[in-house]
C-alpha cells in the first residue's frame, strides 16, 4: 500500500466523495488559485532550466514536438468518425482534446518522478505549452475546413491569452529571467508546497471526474475503449519521440505521458467558441471521465516502465 503516492489517495478520495454525492467541494476561487499555482510552478521550473542552457540547442526538439502536436489529432480523427460514428464536429473536437495535453496529468508525472528520484529534463514544461496549441488549430480546421467564417483572431486570443498558456508562459519567462538563484526567495510558496497544492487540485479533479461518470453510461462502450486505447498508443509514439530526441528515461516517460494525456481546460474552452456544434459532454466524458484517471492511476507507472524498457533495449 505504501507504493501509492498520497496525492493519488486525494484523487480517489475526491472520486469517492463525488460518487457518493457528498456535499464536498472546493470553493471555485480556491480551485482557480490552486490551478494557477500549479501552472506557475511548472512554468517556473521549466524557465529555470532554460536559463541553464542555450535556447538554440532546444529548437530542433521544439520543432519535432510541435510537429507531433499537429499529427496526433489527425491520427484519431478518422477512427472517431468511421469507427465511433461521430459526426464531423464531434470527431474533430474529441481529436483536438486528445492531441493536446493535460497540465494536471503532467504535474502528477512530475511528482511521480520526484518521489522516486528519477531525473528528467525540466524543460519538459516548455513542451506542455508547445503541445497545447497545435491540436486546437487542427481540430478547428477538421471541423470547419479552412473556411473564412472562422474568426482566427478570436481563436488566437482565446488560445494564447487563455489562462493555461498565459500562466505557463509567464512562469517560464520569470524563471528564465530570474535564474535558479533569483527564484530561491519565492521557492517556499511555489516549490516547497507543490505536492500539497497538487493534492488539493487532485481532490477537486476527483470530484469533477465523478460528475462526468454519469454521462459515461449514456455514451457507451466506444468512448471507454477509445479513452484507454488512445493514450496507450500515443504513449508508444511519445516514447519513440523521446528516444529520437535523446531524452533521459524520466524525460521520455514524461513525454509519453504528455502524448497520452488529453486536455480538459484549454481545448474545451477553444472548441466551445470555435466549434460550438460539437457536444462538449462527449469529449469531456472521455478526457476527464476515462483518460485522466487512467493516466494518473495506471498510465504513468506504465509509461515509466515503457521508457526504461525501451532505453534498455537500445543501450
Amino acid at each position, binding site marked *: 500500500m505504501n507504493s501509492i503516492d498520497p496525492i493519488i489517495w486525494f484523487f480517489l478520495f475526491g472520486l469517492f466523495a463525488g460518487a457518493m454525492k457528498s456535499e464536498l*467541494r*472546493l470553493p*471555485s476561487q480556491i*480551485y482557480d488559485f490552486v490551478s494557477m499555482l500549479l501552472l506557475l510552478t511548472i512554468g517556473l521550473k521549466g524557465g529555470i532550466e532554460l536559463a541553464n542552457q542555450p535556447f538554440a540547442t532546444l529548437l530542433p526538439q521544439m520543432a519535432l514536438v510541435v510537429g507531433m502536436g499537429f499529427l496526433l489529432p489527425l491520427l484519431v480523427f478518422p477512427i472517431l468518425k468511421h469507427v465511433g460514428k461521430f459526426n464531423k464536429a464531434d470527431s474533430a473536437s474529441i481529436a483536438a482534446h486528445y492531441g493536446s495535453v493535460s497540465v494536471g496529468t503532467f504535474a502528477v508525472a512530475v511528482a511521480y518522478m520526484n518521489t522516486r528520484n528519477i531525473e528528467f529534463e525540466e524543460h519538459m514544461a516548455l513542451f506542455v505549452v508547445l503541445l497545447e496549441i497545435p491540436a486546437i488549430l487542427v481540430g478547428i480546421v477538421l471541423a470547419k475546413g479552412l473556411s473564412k467564417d472562422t474568426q482566427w483572431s*478570436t481563436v488566437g486570443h482565446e488560445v494564447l491569452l487563455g489562462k493555461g498558456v498565459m500562466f505557463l508562459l509567464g512562469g517560464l519567462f520569470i524563471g528564465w529571467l530570474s535564474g535558479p538563484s533569483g527564484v530561491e526567495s519565492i521557492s517556499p510558496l511555489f516549490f516547497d508546497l507543490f505536492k500539497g497544492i497538487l493534492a488539493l487540485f487532485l481532490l*477537486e479533479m476527483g*470530484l*469533477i471526474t465523478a*460528475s462526468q461518470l454519469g454521462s459515461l453510461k449514456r455514451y457507451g462502450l466506444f468512448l471507454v475503449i477509445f479513452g484507454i486505447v488512445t493514450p496507450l498508443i500515443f504513449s508508444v509514439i511519445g516514447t519513440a519521440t523521446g528516444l529520437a530526441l535523446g531524452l533521459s528515461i524520466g524525460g521520455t516517460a514524461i513525454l509519453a505521458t504528455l502524448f497520452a494525456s488529453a486536455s*480538459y*481546460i484549454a481545448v*474545451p*474552452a477553444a472548441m*466551445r*467558441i470555435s466549434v*460550438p*456544434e460539437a457536444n*462538449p*459532454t462527449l469529449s*469531456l466524458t472521455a478526457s476527464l471521465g476515462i483518460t485522466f484517471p487512467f493516466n494518473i492511476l495506471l498510465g504513468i507507472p506504465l509509461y515509466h516502465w515503457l521508457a526504461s524498457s525501451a532505453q534498455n533495449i537500445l543501450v
Partner: protein
Amino acid sequence: MNNHKTKLLTVITEAALESRLINDIEQLGGLGYTITNARGKGSRGLRSGSWEANANIRIEVICGPELVNQLAEHLQRKYYDNYAMVTFTSDVEVLRPTKFSD
C-alpha cells in the same frame, strides 16, 4: 419619487460566451450591463459552476424596449442552437432613464 418604466433583459448562459456577449451588447448599442456568476440546471443538464467548462453567468441589461427586442432576437439567432442559454425580459422601473438609453 419619479419612476420611469423601461425593460430588463436577463441572459443566463455559459461563461465561455462572456467576452462575445459583451461585444454583441456594446455593438448593438447597450450602454451597460451587469454580470454575475450563476449555477443551475436546465435542458442541457446541471451547470454546477465548479470549474470552467460548466460555469454559467447571468447577464443583465437595462434598456429601452426596442433594443431589448433587438438583443433578444440577435442572441436567439446566434446562440440558441449550440449553447445553453435562457433569455427573458421583464418590466422594470428606474429613477434615471437617461442612464440606460440614449
